[in-house]
């Protein structure tokens, strides 16, 4: 008898040991057993990989590809070409140092593109004003969930020509959350720190900044479209890295999740910046209301001065940006005919 299907040898030791130990059929035999040489039954046993990682991944990928294809038809743009068109700065081994992953981003862009074009029917004005090279995109923040950031990013990817890769700074504590901490870097989001911002701007990237921060996004409905205080950091950053600032007015965000109150004690308990009370949730409407978004991109500001200047000197420049955005918001509100149209 030969170990015919395997190594083709006479009296192969693996064959003998197989029969001695568990007498299993030759069909199960693999040539590697002879090297493994274990006399312990099932020592070389491995979980059958019928539903192994690669199969799951392949299945997920085919579903994702289908989503991308549907999105491409709806949006009317080639999403892969858009992602291929952006300029990134891969390191020596071809990875983005901040963790951007084009594979994950194409699915995200497909989903976001559907929201951008179909759900919120975003109108984009003046996107051609974004200059080449490094740029800080400064916008008003609204709407309880940062959908405004998603839509600005979509506008940069889908409406700007050539597409610009939007980076945005996220809160530090998101890095402590499982899954979010993996997802955000893969989409190109970066933990908010001055060092990271400086590094990205020196790489000639575009950075989306919301100087209002958490205060702005969790505004109650009575304060809609009234800008809260801006931080000074973004102007100092712009002065230091000699970066133009593009003001952006976002219209339509405030009405997506109208909040009637901020339940502060619960927010404190949950360590959240705010706990908005949103009536639509009581009616079971978890999704945001399909308001019509309008994004107005203004003329870029180019400031010059000392980045370590006194607060009062920097505040003037911040005030200039803030008042520009506020007037752009006011004009946009006057021009629109309705919240949903």
């Amino acid at each position, binding site marked *: 008898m030969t170990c015919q299907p395997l190594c083709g040898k006479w009296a192969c030791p693996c064959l003998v040991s197989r029969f001695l130990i568990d007498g299993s059929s030759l069909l199960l035999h693999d040539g590697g057993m002879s090297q493994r040489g274990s006399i312990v039954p099932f020592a070389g046993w491995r979980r059958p990989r019928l539903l192994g*990682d690669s199969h799951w991944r392949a299945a997920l990928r085919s579903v994702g590809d289908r989503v991308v294809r549907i999105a491409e038809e709806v949006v009317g743009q080639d999403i892969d070409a858009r992602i291929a068109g952006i300029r990134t700065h891969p390191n020596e*081994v071809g*990875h983005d140092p901040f963790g951007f992953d084009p594979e994950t981003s194409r699915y995200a862009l497909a989903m976001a593109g559907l929201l951008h074009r179909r759900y919120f029917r975003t109108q984009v004005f003046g996107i051609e004003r974004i200059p080449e090279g490094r740029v800080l995109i400064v916008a008003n923040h609204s709407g309880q969930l940062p959908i405004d950031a998603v839509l600005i990013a979509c506008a940069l990817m889908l409406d700007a020509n050539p597409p610009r890769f939007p980076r945005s700074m996220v809160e*530090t504590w998101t*890095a402590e959350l499982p899954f979010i*901490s993996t997802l955000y870097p893969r989409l190109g989001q970066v*933990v908010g720190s001055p*060092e990271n911002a400086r*590094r990205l701007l020196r790489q000639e990237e575009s950075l989306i900044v919301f100087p209002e921060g958490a205060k702005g996004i969790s505004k109650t409905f009575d304060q809609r479209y009234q800008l809260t205080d801006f931080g000074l950091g973004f102007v100092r950053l712009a002065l230091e890295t000699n970066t133009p600032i593009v003001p952006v007015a976002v219209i339509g965000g405030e009405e997506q999740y109208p909040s009637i109150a901020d339940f502060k004690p619960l927010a404190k308990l949950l360590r959240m910046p705010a706990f908005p009370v949103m009536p639509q949730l009581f009616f079971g409407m978890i999704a945001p209301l399909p308001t019509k978004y309008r994004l107005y991109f203004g003329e870029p500001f180019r400031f010059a001065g000392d980045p370590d200047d006194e607060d009062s000197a920097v505040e003037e420049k911040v005030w200039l940006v803030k008042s520009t955005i506020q007037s752009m918001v006011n004009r946009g509100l006057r021009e629109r005919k309705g919240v949903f149209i």
Partner: protein
Amino acid sequence: MFGDASQPSAKPSRESSVRLKAAAEGAVLVTGICGRLGKLLARELHRSDTVVGVDRRPFIGRPKDITHHEVDMRRKKMKDIFRGRNIRAVVHVGVLHNPRRSDRERHSWNIVAFQKLLEYMAQYEVPKLVVLSGANVYGPQANNPQFLTEDAPLLGAQHFGGMRDLVELDMLAQSFFWKHPTTDTVILRPCHIVGRVRNAASNYLRLDRPVMIMGFDPMMQIVHEKDVTRAIQLALRPGVRGIFNIRGPGEMPLSHLVRKAGGRPRVLPSPLARLALDQLWRLRLSNFPSQELDHLRYVCMVDDTRAREELGYEPIHSIDRALRDLRRVRYLR
């Protein structure tokens, strides 16, 4: 035995100038020479320099021209080594990282012995000190910038008490800068050193089923051990001083790194991983303290611009090469 240790240490100025002149011919003292990195360094150094090794362990397979002293650094005999010959530089690689050793032993070895070493260096006016610290003195934290520069605070011990002595060692070396400005002190802080060495990062990447934390996949940097020894050689050039981060060729997500190394990640939720690792640690089935799991959650990557500009350092060995060398028995040359 070798003379009275309490001999007056002040040297006449003429003699010190002679020593400086002879510095080029002086020997390089390497502590911890019997570790895998120490041996590798010794083999690279002994071609161009006279190498003197100090370690508690015997040096098996020692090249003939390397003098090895099998002594404990805390002993008086250490001083005789300095007194007996002209030492031009000290490379301190003999840092105890083993988390199984008691806090007391680690403190006594990493701090007390290092203090002694610095004392002798000051006394015998050794013109160069190279200390191998590590990027983990910065500590993996959620609010770390993506790339830490040399000025970043050393917060490694904030969540992991076992790092305290390594941070202190780094601080001691830093204070040596201004205490003895005539000595060119160099502190190297490489990211995870990977290769034949038996440190936590290499041991982790050698596992068949390394644990990863569910929902976390931080970017990682690794550097080949030979790149580190080359950086040490560059740091030994006269005139070089300062703190330098050392980084490998590029960074990639941990999951990619694990798969490249041939492991299949075992993904566990963070509390479960912590609990399991604590139990395994107690039963001596694992040598990873559970606090080190933070490395699998948060970034702790370094910016090596200063090393590139001032040290002239450039990583040569690729990540693939480093991962291949993980399972290598020896280097054939």
